[in-house]
């Protein structure tokens, strides 16, 4: 997917705001990488769709069965349950641009 030129945060968040977002972050224990991923995710969500999102953190060490159910392979993984279609991003989410692309937060208005 080509990276489109940035249009500015205000324009994009409008689109995002139209729906309620359900995100799930899969981690395995409290590792620095998991913490970093959660921080990054929260930051992006706050910036883009404040009040219109929910983040559920799933620790697979506590609920290992969920890994199979949600087809989790890499850790950490963010799954956008809503809006459909399902999207996933793996990694510590340190590359914001890729997160926006991956979660399709850069949809046209």
């Amino acid at each position: 997917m080509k990276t489109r030129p940035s249009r500015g945060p205000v324009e994009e968040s409008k689109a995002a705001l139209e729906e309620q977002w359900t995100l799930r972050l899969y981690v395995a224990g409290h590792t620095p990488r998991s913490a970093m991923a959660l921080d990054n995710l929260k930051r992006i969500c706050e910036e883009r769709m404040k009040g219109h999102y929910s983040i559920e953190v799933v620790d697979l060490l506590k609920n290992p069965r969920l890994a199979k159910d949600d087809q989790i392979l890499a850790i950490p993984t963010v799954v956008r349950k809503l809006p459909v279609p399902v999207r996933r991003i793996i990694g510590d989410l340190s590359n914001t641009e890729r997160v926006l692309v991956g979660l399709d937060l850069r949809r046209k208005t």
Partner: protein
Amino acid sequence: MGSKSSTQRTRKSSRTPDLLKVPTGIQGLDELTDGGLPKGRSTLLCGGAGSGKTLLAMEFLVQGAEQFGEPGVFVSFEERTEELAQNFVSLGHDLNSLVAQKKLAFDFILIERSELGESGDYSIEGLFIRLEQAIDDIGASRVVLDSIEQLFGGLGNAGILRAELRRLFLWLKAKGVTAIVTAEQGDGSLTRRGMEEYVADCVILLDHRLTAQMFTRHVRIVKYRGSDHDTNEFPFLIDKSGISILPITSMGLSYTAGKERISSGIPRLDAMLGGRGFYRGSSLLVSGTAGTGKTSLAAHFALASAARGERCLWLSSDESPDQVMRNMRSIGLELAPAVKSEILLFHAVPPTVFGLEMHLLTVHKLVRDFKPRNVIMDSISNFVTIGSEVEIRSMLMRLIHLFKIRQITSLFTSLTTGEAFVETADTRLSSLMDTWLLLREIESGSERNRVLHLLKSRGMAHSNQIREFLLTDHGVELRDVYLGPSGFLLTGSSLMVQHAHEQAQAIEREQEAGAKKRELEHKRRAMEAQIAALQAEFEIEQLKALRVIEQEEARATVRTDDRVQMAKQRQADAAKARKPSRRKAGGSR
């Protein structure tokens, strides 16, 4: 072909005693690896697409679950669980029931590239968690990852993946499970992604290729750290009962040679074989030109086997079972009842359908399943179309070896071509055979007749005589041949001519003797008649003589009387005194 090269074995004397092995339960593979895969380690199974990696790996788990009580986890990166189960139902395994019994667990790891994005560092801890979950759920000791290289396609960061895979294999080792990891074969390397770097304990390569338009699968143990293993390439077969690799168990000559003898089915032939037939477990070669009766000889052998209540496997490569039965019926040999009672099993093996190795494997499987005591292979010549002489020889060697280990008596027929040197064609094969019968046609008196030679028969005193081989309406009959006056064999009608000739001579001689006898009788009678005549003559003479004598005497008496009378008459003047005196004279006599 692997068998061409001499059997090389890498023997490592430093075989560590703690190297435990896990039997795969796959026919032949355990022999090849000298006991199985390294316990608690990972084995890399590589090969091209469709080479049977998934099947072999699955078989390892299924056998483990069914035979050795070792549950297994199958992690698939390629096929969905349902698809896998379906594929294996056709191979006779009900994976779903094994899953229900908690002997088998599946996990399908799907990486949907289209819905996946990457941002920053990650690990594949999710895979570890899932694996651990599955392993702990059923207490698995066997694991298959098929094929883990798919991760490279799904996840973009090869650097991270390499590090993670290294970690995965260490983790598997620590977990103590015996694992098979499959990988796609690369160009000029074992695997496309260099998996052999991570899994270095045991590497097995599967290969499939076309030779002479025939598709053959091979397996080779590329590496087995710390263990004895066979480095040759071996053919393997995938069929409805799963995978089987040609076992090469102790290709030595260590089988026992029994003393038991079995009939060839032809009494006269048994007589030629030291009076008692073939040795059980020996290999027999019947060679001959076209139409000399090789199959008929085989049919006799099969019927003799059936008569003893022994199973017989008939591998037919040039005729269909029906055709064989029909043809044998024409000489009065009824094979159908034996087939019906499942004591005789026909297996048609059109040689061009598979390669030589596949045939070998098929025979192996048949022998294993049917457990015959006698095997007929009619004929081996057709295999020439799919292999060189060296290859056929090697195949036969292995076949005979298999039969000998199992004490199976085997009869091979071979079609020889060319008239002049029929014997040379099979000479190379003959060294493998214990008994060699040659059927030949002899042309004489404008006809061809079949004869049988017993060229060799190891370990018995056997006849060196040629016999005439007749196909009658009640099977094969052997007959003595007549050595004509000029030293040539007489067979067929010339033999009959000879017989007629002899008979005529005998009659003539007989007649001659009769005539002589009659003549003698005649003479004797003539002589007797003569004697009788002489005797009669003598008697007549005698009679005559006696009468003469009598008359003479009588005459003499008469003369005396006359004289007395005359004297009386002279003195008798008185006539009256004549009469009483005459009376007196008569009375005085």
